[in-house]
């Protein structure tokens, strides 16, 4: 599964709407689609799927503000290995 699809699959589950697929620039926090607990759970779920060792405390909220930003973040991390 591609990085994009993996991120969107989890994001759809945590936000409860498929709008995150339709609008990759939607403001996840502004639209209240993610709260702090859901965003930390999302970090952990994606870290596990990508085999990365991410700590929620390392991530800036701004880096996770839209689906596209999360996809970009993980594409960069996966490339780094």
């Amino acid at each position, binding site marked *: 599964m591609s990085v994009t699809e993996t991120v969107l699959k989890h994001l759809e589950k945590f936000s*409860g709407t498929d709008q995150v697929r339709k609008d990759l620039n939607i403001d996840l926090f502004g639209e*209240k689609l993610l709260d702090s607990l859901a965003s930390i759970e999302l970090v952990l779920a994606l870290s596990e799927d990508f085999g990365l060792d991410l700590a929620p405390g390392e991530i800036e909220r701004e880096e996770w503000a839209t689906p596209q930003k999360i996809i970009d973040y993980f594409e960069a991390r996966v490339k780094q290995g």
Partner: protein
Amino acid sequence: MHLIEQIDSWSQSHPGRIAHISGDTTLTYQQLTSQSNKLAQHLLTAFPNDHSPIALLGHKQTEMLAGFLGCIKAGHPYIPLDSSLPTQRVEAIVRTADATLLTVDQLKEIIANTDVPDNFKIHAPKIGNPWYIIFTSGSTGIPKGVTITRRNLENFLEWILDEQDFKEAGEVFLNQAPFSFDLSVMDLYSSLATGGTLFSVSKDEIAEPKKLYKSLGSSGVTVWVSTPSFARLCLMDINFSEKMMPHLRKFWFCGETLAPEIASTLLERFPNAEVWNTYGPTEAAVATTSILITKEIIAKYRPLPVGRPKPGTLVEVHAEDGQPTPSGERGEIIIAGPNVSPGYVNQMEATSKAFFILDDQRAYHTGDWGHVQDDLIFFDGRMDFQIKLNGYRIEIGDIESNLHTVSNVQDAVVILAMKNERADYLAAFVILKSRPEQTDFEIMREMKKQLGERLPDYMMPRKFVFLSEFPTTPNGKVDRAKLAETLQ
């Protein structure tokens, strides 16, 4: 000694000790006494011979503490309201309690512009008078205000200060819960009564994990007071351990079920800290039972026990006939004693339904299932549609009633989605009166907007599902179990 005198005594013995840290702002005990006296003086002048409640609207600002104590010193019970509450809910609370509303900005202005005369005298509440009123979710959509008297609060404090053995003028208490949630009473008054420092984390910090962990790491917290959900959130970062918070010596939980996995992970990551589980409804002043959770307890019991009753309070599990159940048998948890509230403010019917007299003591029907085993009390869930989500007490009926006021809603049912046997999120199943030319997301966004004017964020369903009809049980009721299955 009267509790308010006990709190003020720290400004004499330790005037420079920090009473409250909130973000970059600190408040010493001397400032707390001075500011609370100013507010009391203002209230005594503005409302002579009046003891009606004062609703204080703010978040974790240091002026809120001065506000609470100022109200008490002027003989008014206070109603703590968090600024995250929507305006309509604040208005409903103020109306129900027949209260005067003061915002934190008004508190700041009063503190800045009030002089306290030399003959200033405290008019603190007598033993049976109300100290605070905390509003909880009400099943009909109108919040219920639980009155807690000075007797209730002092009785609770006497117990915990004896049991927990806090160091005088030596502890730093974590304040995670908003002041509008009675869990905060546990850290607020334990701290103020012992000359401790209250360390508040704000909702903005909680919303941004990076800030939260940084703040916790530099807090110096020695006593952790939170819901188990908040500890679970923190534990998701592997760096949350004794190394991050080396002074932490006690985790003290209330507000919801403590999962064994959370307790055991805490004991692993904080080998020098104790983990305490407590239980109690707002109606019986914060907590009524407690237990120190050890590795042995975790190995022996699932779910974990909520402990033994505090001295002087009766906690029993009753069968439908009002008699105590045999050991191991499920029934309703009943609490009777000096910590039980006089009732709901201006809600006689709700009060007479929930409160009664047992063995000459004021008693409360918790509506909680429980059982007794090995002389320990166990909480087995709710008898009705009240739920706990992230520590917040929510009546499903409260959300459903408010959903019915949203335009174009014909019928609505709210379900708590579960994940690994824990409460995960709320889902609303909605039948629309007519289907507009909009996507589901656009309809949901409009509903959230309208609902957000009435309900706090923690009561907002995460997911909205639009249906043409609800599945029903053979007797014609909405089949909630079937709706819940669709969320798996």
